[in-house]
């Protein structure tokens, strides 16, 4: 039973349609992440769920209840804003208690609730301070405290970590995940950071230009991207999208990729997707993640289909935990992810292993996945 449902939602500002027929749902206690580049409509979508923006068409249901026309305060939601939106004239305690004060909750009860949340977020020593006297991380905690104290049905997070420095961001990310596991409340979370999306989500919705591209679990999104946009957006470094041609090999279909000053690479496909047969002799986009393109010793021994070939290594980038190597295939730079201690030199030729069971194919015209 899905808890938050968004059905055929549309939103226009004047003549500009910013959200186009969005359908999403998340079960109770789920963690839905809306991800996409700037201007894709993800924040607008969150604002419509909050009730801060009216919708043009469609329906929003929370816990089976249609909330389209309800005031934000009546939707039983709480929101954490990108800028934290702490009331500058109030202390931390007043900030957290403001909603309760407005609803007429008696003072002793209010103080108890504030104390409980403050303890949970370890901000009890800050309760008498003004927001201007707090650091970024502390403000972030207060903003979360203000949301937590409501004990709502759904939490809405609008890029809550984007104003923090890199290290604090990772800490707070873990903290949010811990809080979610502890409270078990449904969360909708907006971010443009695909790592945040992958680490936090139970379901990810990838948006682009107001259109929902793909909706699924993090592993579905990562391993089975529905088009080149999703494939390229999720993952760091991004998936290699290599222009290639499908040919008839000895044991079935094979894939052929151009190389500068060398004959093309041809890899036999042991178990190609069904739709690929129709592309025989035509060009496709061959998608392979950097970790599926590695040195022979680092290759996944359990992979169903692997192929090895010699590649000219242009650049080597040691990153500590891994070593990235750049080679040239199909007219593009292609990144391979090798073991940290892989013995590889730039300007030489080295064997690279393709994990073909982890690779995907896209139509170069429509950019959609070939299944």
């Amino acid at each position: 039973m899905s808890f938050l449902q968004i059905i055929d939602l549309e939103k226009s500002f004047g003549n500009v349609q910013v959200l186009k027929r969005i359908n999403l749902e998340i079960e109770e206690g789920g963690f839905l992440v809306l991800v996409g580049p700037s201007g894709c409509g993800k924040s607008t979508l969150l604002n419509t769920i909050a009730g801060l923006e009216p919708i043009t068409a469609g329906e929003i249901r929370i816990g089976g209840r249609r909330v389209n026309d309800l005031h934000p305060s009546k939707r039983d939601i709480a929101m954490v804003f990108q800028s934290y939106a702490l009331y500058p004239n109030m202390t931390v305690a007043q900030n957290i208690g403001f909603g309760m004060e407005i609803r007429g909750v008696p003072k002793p009860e209010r103080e108890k609730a504030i104390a409980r949340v403050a303890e949970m977020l370890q901000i009890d020593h800050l309760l008498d301070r003004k927001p201007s006297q707090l650091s970024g991380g502390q403000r972030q905690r207060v903003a979360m405290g203000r949301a937590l104290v409501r004990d709502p049905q759904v939490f809405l997070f609008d890029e809550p970590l984007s104003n923090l420095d890199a290290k604090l961001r990772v800490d707070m990310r873990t903290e949010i995940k811990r809080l979610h596991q502890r409270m078990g409340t449904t969360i909708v979370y907006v971010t443009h950071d695909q790592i945040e999306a992958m680490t936090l989500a139970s379901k990810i919705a990838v948006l682009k230009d107001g259109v929902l591209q793909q909706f699924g679990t993090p592993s579905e999104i990562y391993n089975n991207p529905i088009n080149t946009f999703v494939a390229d957006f999720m993952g760091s470094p991004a998936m290699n999208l290599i222009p290639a041609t499908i040919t008839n090999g000895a044991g079935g279909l094979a894939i052929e990729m151009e190389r500068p000053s060398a004959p093309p690479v041809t890899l036999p496909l042991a178990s190609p997707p069904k739709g690929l047969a129709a592309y025989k002799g035509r060009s496709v986009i061959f998608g392979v993640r950097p970790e599926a393109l590695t040195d022979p010793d680092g290759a996944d021994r359990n992979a169903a289909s692997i192929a090895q070939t010699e590649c000219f290594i242009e650049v080597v980038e040691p990153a500590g935990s891994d070593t990235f190597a750049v080679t040239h295939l199909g007219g593009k730079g292609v990144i391979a992810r090798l073991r940290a201690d892989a013995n590889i030199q730039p300007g030489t030729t080295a064997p690279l292993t393709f994990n073909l069971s982890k690779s995907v194919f896209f139509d170069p015209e429509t950019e959609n996945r070939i299944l």
Partner: protein
Amino acid sequence: MTSAVSQGPLEASRASSTVAPNRLARALIYAALILFAIYYLLPLYVMLVNSLKPLDEIRQGDMLSLPMAGTIEPWLKAWATAQIGVQPTGLKPYFMNSILMVVPAVFISTALGALNGYVLTKWTFRGADIVFGLMLLACFIPFQIVLIPMARMLGILGLAGTIPGLVLVHVVYGLGFTTLFFRNYYAAFPSELVKAAQIDGASFFQIFRRILLPSSGPIIVVTVIWQFTNIWNDFLFGASFASVDSIPMTVALNNLVSSSTGVKEYNVHFAGAIMAALPTLIVYIVSGRYFVRGLMAGAVKG
């Protein structure tokens, strides 16, 4: 900070070599500033000194000399017994008229301006910019143009010649300015705060009163000073729309000074003029530092 710590002997000697011309420039700047300050303060000095002299001392001709036989008689006369129009009432009742006119007019126009600014920035509606543009236009309308329509309106409303009538005139005329001030101030006020308060369940007026107003100190001070000065100093509306018992201070001062009968009592005139200027001076001195701070606020935030 760090450069001060790391300042070795080399930097120090270089610094001291540039100090001498700096000092000279600074002295020149201060000399010029003091000169201008004296030039500006001179009229006030003349007014003050002469308001404390008996009339025959002024007649001897030296305006700049200090009083030999100081007296506060001119002040008492200007306040309580001087002939203004036909009544020997002094400026006292007119001073009261001005207070009764200025205080409500400033309060109402500031409050409405704040509300307008709030609506125009945080509850924008289709055409909000056009409405604001039209209100802005009100700032550029000369007083003289509105005189006759305003007289007609006051007549229709039955407020002609009354203090509430003058309050209305000043509120209407000041609304353009106060709206402009508050709109521009609130435009820089983060909208996310308003959204957060909406989710917290605060109503339209609760958001205004609890979230926006507490952060509006500087702009309220700017608006109050601006409105107070303008309304207190206004002469044209007072002269056009007031009747005998609602004449404001500025008009009464004119009546005192330009009455054509009897001797010109310059000392009394000076005392009256200072009285008329005093309230605006006090408002500036009390809240002047906020005025500067308010004008800068929003320009650089954080």
